[in-house]
């Protein structure tokens, strides 16, 4: 398992990436922002101001570290638990909140972002990510495509078909699995008899690497290597980020039903942010006032995004009908008109 920072924050010097002080501080602040935004979302959900959503608690290093390795032209194909990825890409969190608030405005993805939509059916985004890769190859665009998913996606047929295609056509894909040990109530050990997820790459003729998913430096290094390899035409990589889903599966779930508290506690000790804080401190990049600033900035940013989100009305009715086809077929116009007429009638 690739590890650069261990649980105590000790660093393997020979593997340490050459990141500037600014980069290191950014990594930290992205992780903190992710946690703050996640915590805020949980609060909103409990207050009935947001719907069901999937917390990212504990995934900060694997999300932020990997996304930090992306360059502007690269593509990201996320899954439903990827808040840190959005934070790192600089995606306006307003949309993220809106989406999970159930407001259709949250489905916007600004043009500047080479970022795919959230895919609800587990695993089914992976063939699409490979399609992006095929297209990039055809267009001779030198880009990488990072697609994320968790352990359970590896049980789906789509995972297999996608990785097999990627191997055959040597597409510039990086398949990043957050192995967070659970799929709702199903522990990783019962999802597959394969010893590691990384080794599944053998079946597709390319490399699989196992990385400490709570080590932001290792995640950054492994992802960057894989992206570079992709851009050099050397084909895809499967990365297994070994981590843990510390929260419930979603806010509708109660994880205490199926796993012991001690297990969760043990993983709290491996917290990715704590570990990186020690590292920064050792490097003289962290002190209390820096921490305060980072927290304050994160909170302010999050509060603003939430305010913006809550101030955004749901789209007008037309919007529900205008994105089904490139035009609005007659029958949809009729259905829309009927709906509007009815609502008017009800109002009277």
């Amino acid at each position, binding site marked *: 398992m690739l590890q650069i920072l261990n649980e105590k924050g000790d660093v393997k010097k020979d593997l340490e990436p050459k990141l500037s002080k600014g980069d290191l501080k950014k990594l930290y602040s992205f992780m903190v922002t992710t946690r703050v935004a996640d915590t805020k979302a949980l609060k909103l959900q409990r207050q009935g101001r947001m719907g069901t959503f999937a917390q990212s608690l504990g995934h900060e290093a694997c999300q932020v570290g990997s996304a930090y390795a992306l360059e502007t032209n690269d593509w990201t194909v996320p899954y439903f638990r990827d808040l840190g990825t959005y934070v790192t890409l600089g995606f306006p969190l307003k949309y993220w909140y809106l989406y999970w608030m159930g407001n*259709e405005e949250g489905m916007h993805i600004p043009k500047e972002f080479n970022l795919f939509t959230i895919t*609800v059916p587990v695993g089914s985004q992976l063939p699409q990510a490979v399609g992006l890769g095929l297209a990039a190859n055809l267009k001779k665009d030198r880009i990488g495509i990072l697609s994320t998913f968790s352990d359970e996606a590896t049980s789906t047929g789509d995972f297999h078909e996608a990785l097999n295609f990627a191997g055959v056509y040597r597409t510039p894909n990086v398949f990043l699995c957050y192995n967070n040990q659970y799929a709702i109530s199903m522990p990783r050990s019962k999802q597959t008899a394969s010893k590691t997820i990384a080794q599944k790459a053998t079946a597709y003729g390319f490399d699989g690497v196992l990385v400490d998913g709570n080590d932001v430096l290792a995640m950054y290094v492994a992802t960057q290597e894989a992206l570079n390899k992709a851009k050099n035409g050397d084909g895809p990589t499967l990365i297994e980020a070994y981590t843990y889903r510390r929260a419930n599966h979603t806010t509708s779930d109660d994880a205490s039903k199926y796993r012991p508290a001690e297990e969760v506690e043990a993983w709290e000790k491996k917290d990715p942010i704590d570990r990186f804080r020690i590292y920064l401190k050792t490097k003289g990049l962290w002190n209390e006032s820096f921490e305060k600033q980072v927290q304050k900035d994160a909170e302010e940013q999050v509060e603003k995004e939430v305010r913006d989100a809550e101030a955004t009305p749901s*789209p007008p009715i037309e919007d529900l009908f205008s994105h089904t086809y490139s035009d609005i077929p007659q*029958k949809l116009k009729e259905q829309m008109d009927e709906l509007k007429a009815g609502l008017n*009638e009800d109002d009277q």
Partner: protein
Amino acid sequence: MNGNMVQALNQALEQEMLRDDRVVILGEDVGVDGGVFRVTEGLLQTFGDERVIDTPLAESGIIGAAIGMAVYGLRPIAEIQFMGFVFPGFNQIVSHAARLRNRSRGRFTVPIVIRMPYGAGVKALELHSESTEALFCHIPGLKVVVPSSPFDAKGLLVASIRSGDPVIFLEPKKLYRAGRQDVPDDDYEIPLGTAKVVREGEGLTIICWGAMVPQAQEAAEAVEEKGIFPEIIDLRTLSPLDHETIIQSVQHTGRALIVHEAPKTCGLGAEIAAQINEKALLNLEAPILRITGQDIVVPLPKSENYYYPSPARIVRGIKKTMEF
């Protein structure tokens, strides 16, 4: 027992598993977790992990495995976590479950039940609100069943488990905990293929199923003051359809309104309308209307109510039909 639909389903499963050791359950989170809606709660503890099987996320694998188990002589019940996630397993249903009896000239049968929560109205995420029953009704060899009450849920599930055919068993999640009802602890079946007149009336027949039944009932009550007393049919089995009950009612009332939450085009409402046209044309005093979801994706929670057939929309449909 006095209970809700989840409890009624749970009791049906437990009793059938006690009665017949060929009955097994498989699906995502059905074991330790008791299912995300708790329909299989407690069954792992009672029956062990060979009869209540937690599976990896793989709908084709789940349904395919259920087919194999059925061929070997078991009576598997597969849970699909939400109806929107059945499509990765669609090929196993359409190309195999529905066909193996015919393909083997009766040697192999597929007495499986594929249970899935379906439908909108609970402010869920994308693909957690689908209602694509019509797709299954088009496939020869499948039976499709939808309860609308705890009592029916138990009786229909028991009948589905005992049926010799693959049954798509759709559970209206909006009604899972919507109300309690007396549900006999005894063993009973509601025969598949029999609709139920849940409200007798005159001048108009409303045909509906699942979560639309209470919506239609509410609408019917609302129009009473206008002197309109619709008859309401709860189909309960969508395939094969109980034509007789539908046609008899429309012959009596002279008008028909179909309510479903699936998109309108090629929904089951179309089939019902086509049959009424074919068999009761001369009785019709007005066109058959369909009050349905629009031909769009079920919107996210905040806009969902525009999509979902409300009692008010049904009332408008009733008026339009009556005033034709």
